[in-house]
């Protein structure tokens, strides 16, 4: 029985090898055909026709109308896609260099000048000042305890500073007047050592 079993096993292995080789050849042929199709004018034309067809518009419309968008949005939030993207992009030194170069460029300066000189900014400021909301915000901020406390502290500090200046000057004037008075009546200055007997 043993020679028969060995022959059977050998035959099975040979069959597996032959199947695997045939599958590999079929895969290579399919990929080659796909590459040829993608590189050909026919492939480009086919894609153009599909994308410009009503069917493509209908498919996209249906996809946007259905639950797909909600599902994508949920997954974007769930897997922190934006944070990962932003983190990856913002940490990229190449991007930083490119941004700095773009901001330093004369084109960026011209663009900023155009924006600042445009009527849009003037109009936005005019509307902001004309609206009541801004003044409500200003009033809220001005009446907030933090602001009033800061103003009070600053006022007290200023008054203290003025009083300190007056005190220093008055004490100088005291010393000067006293020296003059003592000189007039021929008395020694108050801080002079007493005369020896």
């Amino acid at each position: 029985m043993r020679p028969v079993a060995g022959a059977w096993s050998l035959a099975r292995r040979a069959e597996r090898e032959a199947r695997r080789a045939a599958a590999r050849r079929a895969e290579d042929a399919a990929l080659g055909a796909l590459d040829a199709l993608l590189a050909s004018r026919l492939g480009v034309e086919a894609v153009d026709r599909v994308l410009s067809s009503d069917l493509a518009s209908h498919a996209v419309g249906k996809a946007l109308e259905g639950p797909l968008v909600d599902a994508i949005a949920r997954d974007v939030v769930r897997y922190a896609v934006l944070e990962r993207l932003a983190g990856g992009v913002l940490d990229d030194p190449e991007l930083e260099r490119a941004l700095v170069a773009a901001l330093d460029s004369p084109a960026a300066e011209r663009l900023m000048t155009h924006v600042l000189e445009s009527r849009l900014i003037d109009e936005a400021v005019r509307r902001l000042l004309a609206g009541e909301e801004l003044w409500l915000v200003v009033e809220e901020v001005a009446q907030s305890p933090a602001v009033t406390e800061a103003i009070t502290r600053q006022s007290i500090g200023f008054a203290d500073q003025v009083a300190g200046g007056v005190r220093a000057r008055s004490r100088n004037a005291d010393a000067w007047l006293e020296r003059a008075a003592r000189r007039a009546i021929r008395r020694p200055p108050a801080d002079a050592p007493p005369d020896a007997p």
Partner: protein
Amino acid sequence: MSTPPPQAPVYEGLVTRAIALAVDAAIVDVIALIVGVGLGLVVSTLGFSHDLRVALLAFGGVAFVVWTVAYFTVFWSTTGQTPGNRLMRLRVCREDGAPLSPRRAVWRFGAMVLAALPLLTGFLTVLVDDRRRGLHDMLAGTVVVGLSLP
């Protein structure tokens, strides 16, 4: 650890004390003026007789004197500092550093008026006295010392 020796008091001079007194005088006068104007307006609308108005004027004068005396004596005998003294960082105390009694504070105020009467010459002794005392300080046994900054 030894305690630091007590610092000798710094006696305050004429200009500093004059500024403090001017501030106090302004406070006393402004408050008296506001009250006087308010009462005057009320009296003018009530149509009092001439004699009654004279009596009210005399009462107002007495009230002003009482208010002025009370202002100074209460501050001197409690904290030792009027608002003007506080501004200039001064303190009125007895020669041994103790606070003034109400009686001594009233006496000091009377002595201050006496010192002011002969064209303020009673204050000039501040310039030559070793402890910078005015005539009223000598009479009341008080000194005016400066307070160090906290």
